[in-house]
């Protein structure tokens, strides 16, 4: 790969905490290597700011391998930036050229309040899982793993839904800040497997109720979530969620729902 360096202008959202108003701040970053990752470019900028006695920019990140789901930047109007099926940490600077201006914001949603700068609170996702995103099996109860054969095609589909990393890009990308793609991926993963079948009705009711309680918006079939999802979670999951939800409603499966 041809290597080059560039100078960039960054407009980054700065916000002291959840209660104070935020604003954009402009920074110049010099000699950025095309081989850096996007977050490494932020490392360079932060080191520069610390050297100048200024406060660095707070952002979430951890594995930097595209799997933990912690990184969460809204880059030039797109969740995780311009690359398809890519988290912010895997976006690399060869995407940009000398002189570019890049605008970076946090995920914006009522259910994801800003903690500081680009860092948001996504505990609402944990609470949605607590509402039913599991199979109720205690440790030690399991039968032999091969006693439950699962059609390969179903297992593969369940896996495709389970590939969700819970980053929240779907919410950030959605004009309604809906969490339907996240919730539907979990509902689909478990409802497609025999292990998840006994609880499928309560699960879908309870998880959707919790999603609404958290203040996420409604789904209006725009599809931005699927387009921006770094793991390629399909809109079919939402269709499946709707079927599961309707089925549970008409089947009286909501009796056990909380």
């Amino acid at each position, binding site marked *: 790969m041809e290597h080059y360096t560039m100078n960039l202008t960054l407009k980054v959202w700065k916000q002291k905490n959840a209660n104070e108003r935020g604003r954009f701040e402009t920074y110049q970053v010099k000699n950025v*290597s095309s081989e850096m990752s996007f977050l*490494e470019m932020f*490392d360079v900028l932060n080191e520069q700011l610390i050297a100048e006695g200024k406060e660095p920019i707070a952002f979430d990140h951890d594995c930097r391998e595209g*799997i933990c*789901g912690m990184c969460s930047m809204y880059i030039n109007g797109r969740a995780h930036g311009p690359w398809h*099926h890519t988290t912010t940490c895997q976006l690399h600077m060869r995407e940009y050229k000398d002189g570019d201006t890049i605008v970076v914001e946090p995920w914006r949603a009522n259910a994801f309040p800003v903690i500081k700068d680009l860092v948001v609170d996504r505990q609402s996702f944990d609470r949605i899982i607590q509402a039913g995103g599991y199979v109720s099996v205690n440790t030690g109860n399991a039968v032999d793993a091969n006693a439950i054969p699962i059609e390969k095609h179903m297992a593969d589909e369940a896996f495709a839904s389970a590939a969700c*990393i819970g980053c929240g890009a779907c919410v950030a990308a959605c004009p309604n800040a809906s969490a339907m793609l996240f919730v539907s991926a979990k509902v689909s993963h478990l409802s497609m497997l025999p292990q998840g079948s006994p609880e499928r009705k309560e699960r879908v009711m309870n998880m959707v109720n919790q999603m609404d309680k958290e203040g996420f918006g409604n789904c209006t079939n725009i599809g931005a979530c699927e387009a921006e999802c770094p793991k390629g979670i399909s809109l079919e999951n939402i269709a499946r969620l709707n079927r599961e939800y309707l089925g549970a409603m008409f089947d009286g499966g909501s009796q056990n729902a909380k």
Partner: protein
Amino acid sequence: MALNSKIPAGLLEEKWEKYKSTCKLVNPANKRQLEVIVIGTGLAGASAAAALGELGYKVKTFCFQDSPRRAHSIAAQGGINAAKNYQNDGDSTYRLFYDTVKGGDYRAREANVYRLASVSANIIDQCVAQGVPFAREYGGLLSNRSFGGTQVQRTFYAAGQTGQQLLIGAYQALERQVALGNVTQYSRHEMLDVVMIDGKARGVIVRNLVTGELERHFGHAVLLCSGGYGNVFYLSTNAMGSNVTAAWKAHKKGAFFGNPCYTQIHPTCIPVSGDHQSKLTLMSESLRNDGRIWVPKAKGDNRKPNDIPEEERDYYLERRYPAFGNLVPRDVASRAAKERCDAGYGVGASKQAVYLDYAAAVQRYGKIEVSKQGIANADAATITKLGKEVVKEKYGNLFEMYEKITGENPYEVPMRIYPAVHYTMGGLWVDYELQTTIPGLYALGEANFSDHGANRLGASALMQGLADGYFVIPYTMGNYLADDIRTKSIPTDHPAFVEAENAVRDRINQLMNIKGTESVESFHKRLGKIMWDKCGMARNEKGLKEAIAEIQALRKEFWSNVRIPGEVNEYNPELDKANRVADFIELGELMCIDALNRNESCGGHFREEYQTEDGEALRQDDQYMYVAAWEYKGESNFELHKEDLNYEVVHPSARSYK
């Protein structure tokens, strides 16, 4: 203090069964009165917290990430071992045990490893019951693949994201317990000290990373599931936040540190591209199933890899180790890569890389597909196309990741790889019950030293984390707490809590008040360079002595010149990092001391003075067949305690994969 490993008497294969049948139990009413603190929510922590919550204990979990699901277990790619013998290829509990002991170069405890192998099958059952979507065959049954250091197929996997799927399984089980009120979870909290009362661990001081406030939490027992310390090298495959702080605080409060120098350098990582590099990315070991590793036969050959003809390539692993070929254990593969690069055969711009080539696999799979699909007289393009499709199904996400990072297409051009720090076999010393030398303080998963000896086999870390959490700690902790049922919860205004919190606050203030000129990151990089150069893949006496002096000097400089921006009582990642780097510096010194003490080569610990004529590790069993457990005695002062390793079943021999 004499180390007591508390290995039960009796035949190896009966020890754990006997222990489980005779250990003390806590009745359900009493469990509700007993509080347990779990630090870290990776596979070990999440599984322990879920299992203990199910039993009825009152559990609190803490993680520094924004959700328990983000712990770095999530990044494990390749798979999890289990002695299921579903492939009818000769696997058994004994063989998994034997492979693990041999893979660890005869530096692990037999009884622990046997227990690990015997619960391995239960782990797969449990995970499948939770809905973990492992890969399956067309008949609907589970699929297996091979991993390094073994000759059977016992690795279960979920594409290239086995860790994520297992962690989500454990996380879901954990969230269920949160919903049931048995577990309270604290995210964005970091443990900064253990609280000791009457010689027992009775709680922790944690910092709320959002507000900066210090909190006190009581527990009848404290479980450290805080992972490994590979980030002491700055560059590693660990997550950016992975750190030793919880384990190190426990060490300074009296928990011995076992075999700190045992570090695993993983052979297949994406090479460093420049000074800006913040972390390294692993390419799963599963790629060695089908990929072939080579360098040019000629030194300094600058041709493009596809222009180098077959006969001018050196498939050095296949040449040196015909029995295991590209699937030798990690330590062996890493050293072989370093040997070729040091000798001048490295590739790429930095010359610090070797090729991992899929061309042969594409052809092999392509031909199988052609025959499966009954295509007569298929042309080369069809074979290649079909072969690429098979490779894509098996390894697609890994290939994609490689392309995103390097900008090169691995379906067309061989991948460039180089070894990188990946895992630490060392950790807090624990007995058979996973208890550290502090009563009531346990260490699980990568945070302890116990099961992998001097080198861990691939797909065994996930196995150990879940074994410790789901199947070991529920029994062994109960055995301890059974004697603690009369202890009421201790209020956190107890002087021990006040004192511990004050000490933590003083240290934070001290760090903030240095107001020096050099960033935390810069100190971390400097530490990493010392460690990699002198305590990395190859070590020698001279280098280690230099490293110790350099680290001591670095520590002084850190405590007089580090610059931490921002305030204490706010979200301040630089302060979090400073706390961690300060501990890494102290740990780095101990690692060098341990490496210097161990005058032998074993597994991941390679002392240049101790090697065979053909460059293999040379153990000194008569002198070093022991676990080095270090006691903290004050700044730069550690006392060595030895736990002798007795092999009753396996007979240690020179490890050979030839």
